[in-house]
């Protein structure tokens, strides 16, 4: 019961208070004299109200940029609100509210339309800057034509888009919507450069460009070039591809990586690589040092591959002599003679494995030939007296000896 009473008392006092407050204020009698509501951006706008001079009126403005309060200049009964330039320049609705002692007494909207009398500006973006040939990939042109005050032009303003590729110049007309206009420029089948520009209301944008890069490579042929067919371990064999193209007959971009995988006699996959220049990639390998037959295949990984090329090398060195000194401590190999009985170029590796009698490897020595000869010295300091088994390997020819070091 008590609670109820308190509630009634509260309700009563509150309503009294509100009524009292309302009645105690001056009821504002302001009348809007300005009738025009539609403006062009940049036009000066003044709102005129007629009200009692003693009243302290304020105008709140709100547009997409923000909110501001304007104080009037008074002239007799007239309250003149000059709308600041940053509000008059901005297109779109500009809401106003007249305030008196924190109370909204009246409100309205000013419709400001973009100023199309003066030349427009064009803000445009184009990307990505490179696309892949074949009518699927595209770059997108986004055009934002704006008026003098950077207001987007009205919806459905016509924008013409021009793009050039080789001898073709195409003009399309699009219209703005959602404040901008956009156009997808699809790639061509040919590689090259697409130049794009746009214009709106006789104002032209600057030039943009997108490069059309070739599409996925098609299979290609490989070939080789060498000075002779002998495995001398010195000359260089060069592999090269045919001009690699995509399915639209475009030559691949310079620098495209081509891997050449070479399978040798023993089934090992050797590898060399090269990058294309005008569609041709070339890569080099040294001639092997022994009789070999190579199977070569080139890859652009994931995209294409070449034919398999077979390449045989004949042995350049058919045989060589090994001379062992009297105390067996000096082993001279050679002369190593090549396919025309000439002395081989310096640098043929000669490997000698030294094993003890139990065929356990004691040491491996590798030297390279000089003037066709190679010499191993088994010095006293390193190899004590006893029986050893030697395995000499060079140019794919293995020779074995049992010696006794004295």
């Amino acid at each position, binding site marked *: 019961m008590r609670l109820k009473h308190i509630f009634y008392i509260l309700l009563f006092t509150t309503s009294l208070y509100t009524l009292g407050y309302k009645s105690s204020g001056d009821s504002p009698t302001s009348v809007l004299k300005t009738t025009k509501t539609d403006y062009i951006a940049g036009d000066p706008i003044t709102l005129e109200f007629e009200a009692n001079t003693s009243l302290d009126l304020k105008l709140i403005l709100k547009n997409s940029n923000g909110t501001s309060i304007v104080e009037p200049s008074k002239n007799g009964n007239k309250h003149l609100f000059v709308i600041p330039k940053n509000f008059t320049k901005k297109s779109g609705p500009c809401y106003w509210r007249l305030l008196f002692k924190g109370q909204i007494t009246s409100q309205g909207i000013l419709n400001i339309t973009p100023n199309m009398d003066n030349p427009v500006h064009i803000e445009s973006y184009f990307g990505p800057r490179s696309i892949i040939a074949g009518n699927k990939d595209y770059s997108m042109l986004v055009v934002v034509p704006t008026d003098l005050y950077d207001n987007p032009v009205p919806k459905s303003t016509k924008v013409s888009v021009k793009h050039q590729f080789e001898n073709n110049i195409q003009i399309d007309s699009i219209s703005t919507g959602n404040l901008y206009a956009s156009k997808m420029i699809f790639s061509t089948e040919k590689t090259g450069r697409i130049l794009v520009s746009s214009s709106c209301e006789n104002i032209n944008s600057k030039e943009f460009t997108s490069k059309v890069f070739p599409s996925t490579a098609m299979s290609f042929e490989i070939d080789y070039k060498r000075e002779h067919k002998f495995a001398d371990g010195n000359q260089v064999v060069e592999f090269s591809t045919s001009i690699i193209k995509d399915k639209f007959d475009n030559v691949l971009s310079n620098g495209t990586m081509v891997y050449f995988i070479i399978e040798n006699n*023993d089934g090992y996959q*050797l590898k060399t690589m090269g990058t294309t220049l005008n569609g041709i990639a070339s890569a080099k390998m040294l001639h092997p040092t022994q009789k070999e037959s190579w199977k070569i295949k080139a890859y652009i990984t994931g995209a294409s591959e070449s034919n398999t090329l077979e390449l045989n090398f004949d042995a350049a060195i058919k045989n060589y002599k090994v001379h062992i000194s009297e105390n067996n401590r000096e082993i001279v190999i050679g002369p190593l003679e090549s396919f025309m009985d000439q002395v081989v170029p310096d640098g043929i590796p000669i490997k000698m494995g030294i094993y003890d009698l139990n065929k356990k490897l004691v040491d491996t020595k590798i030297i390279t030939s000089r003037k066709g000869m190679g010499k191993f010295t088994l010095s006293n300091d390193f190899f004590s007296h006893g029986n050893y088994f030697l395995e000499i390997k060079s140019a794919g020819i293995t020779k074995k000896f049992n010696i006794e070091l004295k």
Partner: protein
Amino acid sequence: MKKTNTLLVLALIVGIAFHGSAIFFTLEYTYDALIHLFFADHYANSWFEPWDFRWYTGFTVQAYPPLVHQAIGLLSHIGGLKFGLFTVGLLAIILFITGAYRFGVLITGDRKIGGYTALLAVFSSTFIETLHIFGQLPSIAALSILMHALPEIYLWLKTGKYKYLLTSLSLTAVAVTSHHVTPIFGMVFFIFPLIGMVIMDDSMDRVKDVKKITLKVFLISFKKLFWRIVTFGFSSLFLIITCILPYWINSKNNPITQVPIPHGSRDNFLEVTSSGLVFFVIPWGILLFILPYFMYRFYSKRYLFFGLSFSMLTLLGTGGTTPLPLKLLGETAFNILTLDRFTLWATIMALPIFGEFMYRIVEGDIKTLMQKKLGSVYHRIMGGVIIGGMLFMVIFTMSLGYFRPSQPQKIKMLPIVNFLNQDQHDKWRYLPLGFGDQMAWLSAQTKAMTVDGNYHSARRLPELTTRAIERIENSKFRGVEGIGSLQQFLTVPEKYNLKYIFSNDKFYDPILYFCGWHRLQQLENGIMVWEKLNVPPLPSIISKDDVSTTLKLMWGIIPLSTVLIAFIINIQLIWYRVLKSKKISPPDYMTYKKDYKNFPFGLVIINHIWAAILLLCLAYGMYLFYIKNTTQISPDNVVKAYYDALDFKEFQRAHSYLDPESDVTLAQYMLEVSVTDGILSSYAKLDSIGIEIIDKKKKSAKAKISTQWITPLEKVYKNYYHELLKRNGQWYIKPSKLDNDIPPDQLFVANGSTFYTHGRRRITTQQTHHEDILKQPLLEILSAKLVQLNGQYSIIGELQNVDDVPSDVVLKATLYNDDNTELANFNAKYHIKHKLMPKETTPFKINFEGIAWSSTKDTIPPTFNPDEFTPISLEEQPTKFNLQCAGNVAITDLYKSVSLQELEYTDHGIEGSLFNSGIQEVTIPQLLISYYSSDEELIWVDHQFLIDGVRVQRKQFFNYHPRDISNIKLINSNMENCFINGTLNSEIAEKINPNRNKEHIIKQSQPFKGNGYDFIKFDINSYIGNPK
């Protein structure tokens, strides 16, 4: 009225002329001077704001007492920073000489001896070293002020006149604000003995005879003076706390929790002789020879407490030579303090006694005694020897910085400063490498920030504080911790907005390359600028630890005020003293002047014996040095000398150790050496060398040399075998055989595409136009998996540049657990080719590295291993991963002309050779080895750096030991969270390569039956040290 002290005037003139002119050639090359200059620059620009963003991603200058820095900063407004530095340097010199004079007079009560002390102070090697080699200006300033304060303190204690309390406290305050350690330890080591001396003097006054001073007499005097002592003690404690209160608060808030940084003064001087030289022999210098005299004098009754203090300082200064300093100081203090300052104080404390000694030998009783007993010629010779010894120490100390420069050559900073100001380069952090302490001078000249810094007590990043390195900049000298720290900054630079590296040391080039950095340009001062792509610029607002305005004001106002106050209070007395405008009675301590007579001859003998022992030790040391360093006296020495010469690239010297009968001329040898390039010959530092002489005969020997090289990438172990010969009593090395391989042609032609990009096409300070921004190349991740091998998580995979332009690749992986909580992230380091040609593929592996030794419990390995890896400790099991891959157009480091020429599986690994078919010399080839399972899935990625380079058109052999990966665990191979430039990888794959031929990868690999895998594939990444 007394005469002007000619000796003091002479000391001042000589001191200012000598030190004042020498500092222009030494101070900038010292360890510390440029750091003080940087701090001064901070105060010159923002006096009251203690936060400086330029070092350590921000630190507070309240970590160091500010007086000297503020003085330099203030003076810099007149004539620039260096003007300030040298002016303060000159002031410190004057203060030191006059301070030494006053200290000398105080101790001996004789103005003449004071003059001697001042003159000796000018030439004391400890002062020369502290100023000209260490550049410790604040320390010198504080010590000098302390010496000025000592007479005042004495007078306060002795007379109880309040004006002396005031003067002594005013000077103490100045000392506190210039250096914190000096007054604190000064209290213990200088002021306590001084109190003891005052009490002795007071006792003396009462009993009139030294011999009558007993403990009881002493205690009575102590009681009498007690309140004066307490007053001074508490007042000075109050000053120590308040004058640099912000410092104490900062120390409390940011306690030094870092791993102790090794310092030479903590070494065992007998083991590390270089430390012994710098931290013991040089500061002591000639004083070492008359140590018995010091002991004799310091342990006389009046100086007894100084004697105790002096002995303690001497002992603590010996560092790690004996275990005593460690026991006395405790582990923490031992590891934080640099012990050389104890030696500094000991030698300074000895100066008055040394002055007294010189006085007595020049014109006192020792002279008479020696002339009588040993003849006047001997006396003169002795005098000459002492003066000669002093001069030798002076020249030796001064020349140390010349012959063994502690700093790299002076770098012209202007081009770097210009570079940083250009094109908004200062929007990113930079890192200098190989600059030495000059990095501080660079920082002082620019607003740009670095992650590094040169005041290690203020470091904040755990990457730095958990390692015992002073700077990343000289990380190669700090072994595993150094390179480890550096690698973290290089691998994840975007974390620190680190985009530019200024390299003054070629040593770091390979690590930069393999971490994905590339050379941008060489500045005209020879500094190479390295750049990393895809690093975001610094945010415009960076956080800082702010302190209250009160503290800022205290820090800005108190220090210089203490100087002003001290000046005003003390100037009156100095004025009277200097101008003699008012008769002042001589200070109290002058009454205790000792009559020097009857010098005990026994001491002369003892001192001679001591000097003889020292000389013997010195001679023995020299002999050891000779034996160790005479290069060809034994097989061991010649091998060591040979590798030392190679390490320092002194090829002429190296050649002189080769067998003269082997007919290898120097020209031929140089040819052979100059053609070998590679990580060992160009980027390695010999870390240790183990020489095993096998089979030594009279005239020949065989040596197995196991070397360990520090390279920026890995630690390299290599064994060499040499045959050694003895000819004419000298040992020589037999030259080893060379590769005879020669390419078939003289001239080679190579064609290829080269690339160039320019940042902006029009010169403007505006933001780059969007049409001037390069499109990011498209990459495609072909496979990616989260795997676990031996407890360590890695993300492995393969990716391809599917665009038509070369691309730089930045790969960042993040690990998540089942609840999608992020566990760790890291970038790809070595296990990737960072620069890819169009359509090129690369395997990759991302290891998750933790911050090494973040818990101090982990023991730090004692030896260097740059490849040391600290796996991150994850709290939970990672189950998912996210891979963010960014491509940016690359135009450099695109050399791809190395082929896999030969291959053979043998019992000791896979043997093969690389052939360089192009026209650039490959300095460091790297093999990336991908492991595939039987179902042709990538399961592991490994790498190997080849030790030798591949010369143009030649082969290089390698040997690779395949890994055992049988216990590899695949955790996740879902690629739905792989992104390229922010776009889903699957979308790019669908768009660019919808019909990808997945067979190609496996077709390029080798069948190889290994432990846990069936195929392997080799990829080659080549680093070119000198691109042509």
